[in-house]
């Protein structure tokens, strides 16, 4: 046990920090998850720069264009990206979900075709899992996938797809056997977002931004070579995708929370805080440190045993609730000024926007209710609730 970086990790961190200081484009600094307000040209250039420096797909095998680095490097990079308030790689979905799924289940031809432009940000990916009738209950997917000779034909609707309005490809789950129920009869496809019959419509959210989209699919033809896994075996492939979503995501989230807590401390210093508010500020810092250390414990277990520790399962849930509490606390510290947004607002309205955005945190990537059930059933071993 040693919570310090090893000399090798420290050198990697130092190099990453220097690189970020020189390379994060000023106009993209402080940028959030969403890509609504960003300049896509700048985002593409930034993603390419990350790739060329070897920082995209750090833990991916070298044969697929990654750096083959240990998972600790990925964690360090995520921390340093957050500290530099650097924007994410444009391919958040590609790097975190589509890529690892293709590496695990794809054919050699698919790996050769998709992975390199994914890493460079040349081709952007989105995810088509959720539907109007299938949210937490993903096995309720109804989008139909009809086998027609050497291709599949898709009809249906997907929703809550980040990046879909700018994406080139979508990892999509559809029902290939209309008579099937639940987890059976689902098929996992790579869908060309530029194909005829695909339409992405941005959804404006409570912050006023549009980070998510609806995807309408009408008679979309998908060639057979875009199948991932087996026809009817989509659920198993989808589980790989979700496993990756909940893997190093914890570190990324905690790193972002660290930046927010830093801003909260600055706010409390700038504006002053009552004893009760100071208590609340200390609570949020303690919670952050606890989450960071829990992420480290989970990653250390991953490095030691190949399996992330069970404590990692709590990170997204705890992070989302922490982010809601701390942004609400920031509004309290701001008082009436919390109502202002835009250029004349304190901190350009950053807190007001973050507080509204935080309400989505307990819904996206697994609602808190679903995550509590997952902890109860899979970690604590309680009887299934359904």
């Amino acid at each position: 046990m040693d919570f310090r970086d090893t000399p090798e990790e420290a050198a990697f961190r130092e190099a990453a920090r220097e690189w970020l200081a020189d390379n994060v484009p000023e106009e993209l600094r402080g940028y959030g998850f969403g890509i609504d307000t960003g300049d896509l040209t700048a985002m593409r250039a930034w993603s390419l720069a990350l790739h060329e420096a070897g920082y995209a797909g750090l833990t991916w095998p070298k044969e697929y264009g990654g750096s083959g680095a240990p998972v600790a490097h990925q964690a360090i990079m995520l921390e340093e990206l957050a500290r530099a308030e650097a924007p994410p790689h444009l391919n958040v979905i590609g790097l975190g979900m589509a890529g690892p799924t293709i590496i695990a289940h794809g054919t050699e031809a698919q790996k050769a075709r998709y992975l390199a432009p994914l890493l460079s940000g040349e081709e952007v990916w989105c995810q088509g899992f959720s539907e109007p009738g299938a949210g937490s209950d993903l096995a309720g997917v109804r989008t139909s996938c009809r086998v027609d000779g050497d291709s599949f034909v898709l009809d249906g609707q997907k929703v809550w797809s980040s990046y879909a309005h700018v994406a080139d490809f979508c990892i999509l789950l559809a029902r290939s056997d209309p008579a099937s129920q639940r987890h059976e009869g689902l098929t996992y496809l790579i869908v060309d977002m530029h194909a005829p019959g695909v339409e992405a419509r941005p959804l404006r959210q409570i912050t006023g931004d549009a980070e998510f989209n609806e995807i309408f699919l009408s008679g979309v033809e998908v060639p057979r070579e875009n199948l991932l896994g087996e026809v009817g075996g989509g659920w198993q492939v989808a589980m790989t995708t979700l496993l990756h979503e909940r893997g190093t995501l914890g570190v990324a989230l905690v790193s972002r929370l660290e930046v927010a807590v830093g801003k909260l401390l600055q706010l409390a210093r700038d504006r002053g805080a009552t004893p009760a508010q100071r208590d609340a500020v200390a609570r949020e810092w303690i919670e952050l440190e606890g989450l960071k250390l829990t992420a480290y414990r989970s990653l250390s277990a991953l490095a030691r045993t190949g399996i992330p520790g069970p404590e990692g399962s709590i990170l997204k849930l705890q992070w989302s609730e922490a982010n809601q509490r701390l942004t609400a606390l920031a509004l309290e510290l701001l008082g009436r000024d919390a109502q202002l947004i835009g250029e004349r607002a304190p901190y350009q309205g950053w807190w007001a926007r973050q507080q509204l955005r935080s309400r989505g945190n307990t819904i996206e990537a697994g609602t808190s209710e679903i995550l509590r059930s997952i902890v109860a059933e899979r970690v604590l071993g309680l009887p299934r609730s359904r």
Partner: protein
Amino acid sequence: MDASFTPEQEELRAQARAFLEANPEPTWAQLAELGWTGVSVAEADGGTGLGFVEQGVLHEELGRALSPGPFYSTVAVALPALPPEERRRVAAGETSWALALGPLVPDLDTVERIAVIGGDGIYELIGAEREILETNDETRPLGILAGGEIGERLAGSEVLADVRRRSLAALALEACGAGRRALELAIEYVGQREQFGRPIGSYQAVAHPLATSYMELELARSLAIWAAWCIDAGDAQAQTAAAAAKSQAADAAVAACERAIQVHGGIGFTWEHVLHRLYKRALWIRSWEASGEQLRAEVASTLLDGGR
């Protein structure tokens, strides 16, 4: 960076748990025999020569087992204030100590010797009368001292900061152990107890609070392990880490016990069930050294006032 226990540390935990399950109320001599009383005493001073992380493993397991006895008072609190020859005697199990940090002193029923703070240092107190008071937590009695004479000077008061850090970290780890056991009892019970034809653990209104206990305890445990490591490594953040860990762990343990009592229904409210003992220890820990509010005020001061 490696936040995991070594195989040797895991082995120590497994041994400690097995031993305490067979001997929930071990004697001081037994603990000395196992090398626990000297776990963090240097080998040159007759100890095992391990560190505070290993000592922390024992605090967590002793908290889990609700073991009575002066391990916390002697090894966590008094030890940093003892000269080498006294550490040697502690490691050998020949003596035990309590350091009186306030009017109420734990473990006066079991410790052999007593240290007090006087002026510029810490001294032995000889021949004081001890009165054991009635307390909620029967596993860790409190008492008061009267009279006695100041004896040998043991240490300068500069060791008190270290004493406090170690005490806070030890209490945090005990709380993690006790809270975890309460959670495990709850998990076992709600998996068996049936109402309306189903195990009650299948109801989300029962299951989700237990998931919350797990999350709070794991978060607290991460902080407590970090605090133990900081103390071992002489890290500059040791004081803040110990304060953060104790405030979080005490609250998490109390809440875990309360939820465990709730999901047990009536049986959890009875004297015969062990839950109230775990609960009382958790409450003891929460009240001891400093409240969560006081500790967070310290943390806030470090964060906002530059440590003033």
